[in-house]
């Protein structure tokens, strides 16, 4: 009994000792290389890396450590391998400037890789030209916060993702900036995770990419100038709120691409100047409400494979086409939106137009069948046929209409 009490006390004391254990790394310090300090440290130690230039790679962190960069020490991977590989729980890495990892087509080399770790925190780092930036694999309860990840991606085949998460749970990704990679943030088999306040720009493929990831949410992010803003594929229960999708502009670009997803919420997002605001292919049971679609080529492109989506209380402002579909039957519900192209009237003055609005113009329907027809866009002939179709619909899906179009723009929060 007494011995066990002693042992317990000893354990606490040694824990305390270890926790307060700080190792400095720097030119004039005991350790000149981070790798050596990591090897020598006891679990729970803090490794302070002083400002300087360290040419190191393949630093394997196999115990609980706090790596703390002071004044952003530069760690250069010398185009060889990856820099930090974490294979333990509760590791914290912050304040580093990592650059120049190797490029491999066999291994996904990364600036910081977490393999099988839990409770890790990666924050306030700057990563430049690391093939993959931050790579989590089989991780849980981790936080990736306030990192700046910039790549030099030129084409999709030889580039990595800024933040790549695979087979993980309860991850928080917030306040990061992801530039010029293949995908800004990539999630595959990731559950119960939160992506918020990130900025994802100039990525070749997607700003944020979900694959087979269920029950996640992303909020308050900005996706600008990416190949496509966000792609949500083969996923369920994704909450998408308060994001800005902007200038994802190009002949094959989208703000938000929905591919085979069900039961999501798309609320209070802003879609500005995208070629296609939301592209839905096999998207079912989604609720799209209080979004603002402004100056997009197509605000919504909803293919015939989409069922039971609710499009309510959105603002559609100055889009070249509001809605386009290739279906002849409408399986989705449009109700109570504001359409800037609506020309109806409101005799009873209840704020709701008395004539239903048909958001699918004949011409946009034709272009979905014959894409070449787009060359006569803005021709007076197009206005003529659109008008004729409006008066007497014959080709466009007749039930695709907003029976209660609003007369005034909705004030969005």
């Amino acid at each position, binding site marked *: 009994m007494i011995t066990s009490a002693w042992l317990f006390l000893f354990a606490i004391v040694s824990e305390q000792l270890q926790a307060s254990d700080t190792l400095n790394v720097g030119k004039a310090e005991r350790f000149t290389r981070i790798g050596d300090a990591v090897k020598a440290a006891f679990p729970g130690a803090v490794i302070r890396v002083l400002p300087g230039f360290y040419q190191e790679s393949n630093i394997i962190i196999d115990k609980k450590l706090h790596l703390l960069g002071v004044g952003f020490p530069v760690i250069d991977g010398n185009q060889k391998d990856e820099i930090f590989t974490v294979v333990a729980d509760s590791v914290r890495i912050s304040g580093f400037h990592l650059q120049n990892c190797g490029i491999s087509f066999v291994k996904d080399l990364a600036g910081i890789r977490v393999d099988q770790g839990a409770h890790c925190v990666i924050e306030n780092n700057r990563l430049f030209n690391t093939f993959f930036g931050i790579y989590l694999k089989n991780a849980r309860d981790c936080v990736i916060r306030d990192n700046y990840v910039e790549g030099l991606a030129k084409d999709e085949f030889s580039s990595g993702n800024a933040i790549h998460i695979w087979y993980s749970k309860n991850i928080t990704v917030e306040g990061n900036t992801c530039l010029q990679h293949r995908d800004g943030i990539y999630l595959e088999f990731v559950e119960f995770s939160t992506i918020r306040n990130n900025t994802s720009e100039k990525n070749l493929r997607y700003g944020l990419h979900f694959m087979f990831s269920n029950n996640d949410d992303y909020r308050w992010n900005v996706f600008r100038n990416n190949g496509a803003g966000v792609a949500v594929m083969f996923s369920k229960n994704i909450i998408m709120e308060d994001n800005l999708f902007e200038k994802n502009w190009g002949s094959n670009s989208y703000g938000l691409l929905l591919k085979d997803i069900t039961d999501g919420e798309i609320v209070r997002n802003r879609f500005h100047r995208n070629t296609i605001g939301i592209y839905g292919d096999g998207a079912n049971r989604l609720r799209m409400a209080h979004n603002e679609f402004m100056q997009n*080529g*197509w605000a919504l492109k909803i293919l015939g494979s989409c069922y039971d989506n609710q499009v309510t209380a959105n603002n559609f402002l100055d889009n070249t086409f509001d809605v386009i579909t290739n279906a002849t039957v409408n399986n989705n519900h449009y109700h109570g939106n504001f359409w800037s192209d609506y020309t109806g009237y409101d005799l009873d003055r209840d704020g709701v137009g008395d004539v239903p609005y048909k958001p699918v113009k004949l011409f946009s329907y034709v272009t979905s069948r*014959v894409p070449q027809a*787009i060359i006569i866009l803005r021709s007076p002939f197009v206005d003529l046929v659109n008008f004729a179709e409006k008066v007497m619909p014959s080709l466009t899906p007749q039930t695709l209409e907003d029976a209660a179009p609003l007369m005034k723009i909705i004030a969005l929060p």
Partner: protein
Amino acid sequence: MLKVLKYSFYDLSRSRWTYAYLLFFLLLTFGLLNFSHDLSKTIISLMNVVLILTPLIGTLFGALYYYNSKEFIDLLLALPLPRRSIFLGKYLGLSLSLSASFVIGILAPMLLFGILSTGLVLNLVILMSTGVLLTFIFTAIAFLVSIRFEHPIRGFGAAIFIWLFLAVIYDGILLLILIWFEHYPLDHFALLMTLFNPVDLSRVLIMLQLDISALMGYTGAVFRKFLGTSLGMSIAYATLLTWIIVPVFAFLWLARRKDF
């Protein structure tokens, strides 16, 4: 020829129609700019007006001017002047005065709103150059038609029909062909077809400049690949010039052979 040109230009610059045309563009551009405060949006809105109106006004004024000054032309014909210089002078005088109204009407408000300090100068140049070219093209067509038809009503009818055909009907036919042959690769065909219509060609030129081409998907890419290069641009402008030269030569030829 220059004398005739000068005379008809001065004559037209005293005409209130010229001023009405100028005033229209001034007010339109000014109004749009005041309304939107966005130069690039204004250029897009102007595009639609320019593509409809400059051909229409060119057509109407061309026919009207020819039939109105018929007696004067007869008088000139009695003088020892080559017919070529009489008709060319008349034509250039009208086209130049219409173009001047158009250019001043758009340029003045744009300069006032500081177009030079934005990156939109090239867009405006393309808009105005296509507008001017369209004016020249449709005035030439109107002259050709007017010389061909002695009777003003017939002449007007034919001129307006040509305008209607190129501005509206042509696109309908093009669309029908595209739908009928939708299973064939039609991008190059569509490109070729736009070359045969000055209005379509002008519109595509402006739209590519305005970067709406992203909306046009693969077809837009084909167009951009062709018209985005300096060679394609040159071909497009050369085609528009051909659209001036051919009718001009045709009406000069008719004028030479006609028994007045």
